[in-house]
């Protein structure tokens, strides 16, 4: 069953699928982390209407399946004249969805830093931004890292949902080969590749966490 020739035959298509998976993963991480920071600032802002709108957004994004959001953007929106190409539709859905999760994580992080830290900065004549940058953000980063790590691992696997809108990712490449050749091997290879991807992420996240272990 594990015929080396067969494996080397299907590996190129699996690798090209994996590269699509990685692209979706990377752009989503970049886009949703940045958007998440801004949403989190909105969630902790004192301007109530802003806070309410973003809370509603977070509720919507976390309260409905990512799969539904993906289908809605790619198959639903064209019926009202808004058309996104597959890849763009996938990125949009993933970024909007993951940003909501990151926003909640950052909000929790920001709120768990003692307000007294801002006051300590203030009586030392530091500005709000100086205190935020030098004192608050390093503490927030340390607090949120484990939760961010969880979402990162989830995203590697969630990226396989793009399959439903016909994007050729790793899972789809495996599925195509398995259906064509009537064998389990491609599925097993796909599983191994996901394990490698999540393994690399776990390793990198540990490194970053270790970097922040110098303080408590």
């Amino acid at each position, binding site marked *: 069953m594990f015929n080396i020739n067969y494996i080397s035959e299907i590996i190129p298509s699996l690798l090209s699928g994996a590269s699509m998976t990685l692209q979706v993963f990377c752009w989503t991480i970049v886009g949703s982390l940045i958007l998440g920071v801004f949403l989190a600032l909105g969630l902790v802002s004192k301007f109530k209407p802003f806070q309410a709108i973003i809370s509603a957004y977070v509720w919507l994004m976390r309260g409905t399946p990512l799969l539904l959001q993906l289908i809605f953007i790619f198959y639903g929106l064209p019926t009202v004249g808004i058309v996104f190409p597959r890849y763009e539709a996938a990125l949009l859905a993933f970024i909007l969805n993951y940003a909501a999760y990151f926003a909640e994580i950052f909000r929790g992080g920001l709120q768990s830093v*003692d307000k*007294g830290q801002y006051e300590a900065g203030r*009586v030392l004549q530091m500005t709000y931004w100086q205190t935020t940058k*030098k004192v608050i953000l390093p503490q927030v980063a340390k607090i949120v890292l484990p939760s961010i790590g969880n979402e990162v691992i989830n995203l590697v696997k969630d990226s396989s949902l793009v399959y439903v809108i016909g994007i050729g990712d790793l899972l789809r490449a495996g599925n195509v080969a398995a259906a064509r050749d009537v064998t389990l091997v491609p599925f097993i290879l796909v599983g191994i590749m996901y394990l490698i991807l999540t393994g690399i992420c776990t390793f990198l996240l540990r490194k970053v966490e270790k970097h922040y272990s110098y*303080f408590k």
Partner: protein
Amino acid sequence: MLELKNVVKSFNGKTIINNLNLKIQDGKILTIVGPSGAGKTTLLRCISGLEKIDSGEFLLDGQPFDPYESRDNESVIGVVFQDFQLFPNLSVIDNITLAPINVLHQKETEAKERVQNIIERLDLTKFVEQYPYQLSGGQKQRVAIARALAMNPSILCYDEPTSALDPELRNEVSKLILDLKENGITQVIITHDIEFADKVADDTLTVKPVD
């Protein structure tokens, strides 16, 4: 000298400080004592500019002075918080030099040099590279004092300096505070510990809740 004239502060319609007049003499120690809820901490927060007063005025060396608005690095009111509020992500030396570097725009080497005598006086030489979580309560307090002194404050305020420490350390704190007085530092101390207050005070203000 810092002078408070007719200072009023209320929260949600409840008056906490009612027409307070107070003089804080240079180089002296003023203790503010009174029961919980009497507004001791509120008063300290007003003096240090963390709260805005409703009415009244402050005079620093005869000049009108608003601690809430002041960004003048020559008239800093230093604060040693009850729970110290050291920056956990920074080493002791970085805690102490953060403001001199960022606010007074000193170079890192210059800032470290300038705080050297403060560090020696507070017996912190051994700890400069450590992080706050590695320190005992008394050591944390000394770092908090050093951090405040590094900004060369006109007045140094303490909120309940003995409350977070073991009882045995009380004498050490009073010794330290008297030692700083020898060095000409004006200090305001909020405490409910009358015995401690008697030991260090030149003047005492007794506050009670406004009826």
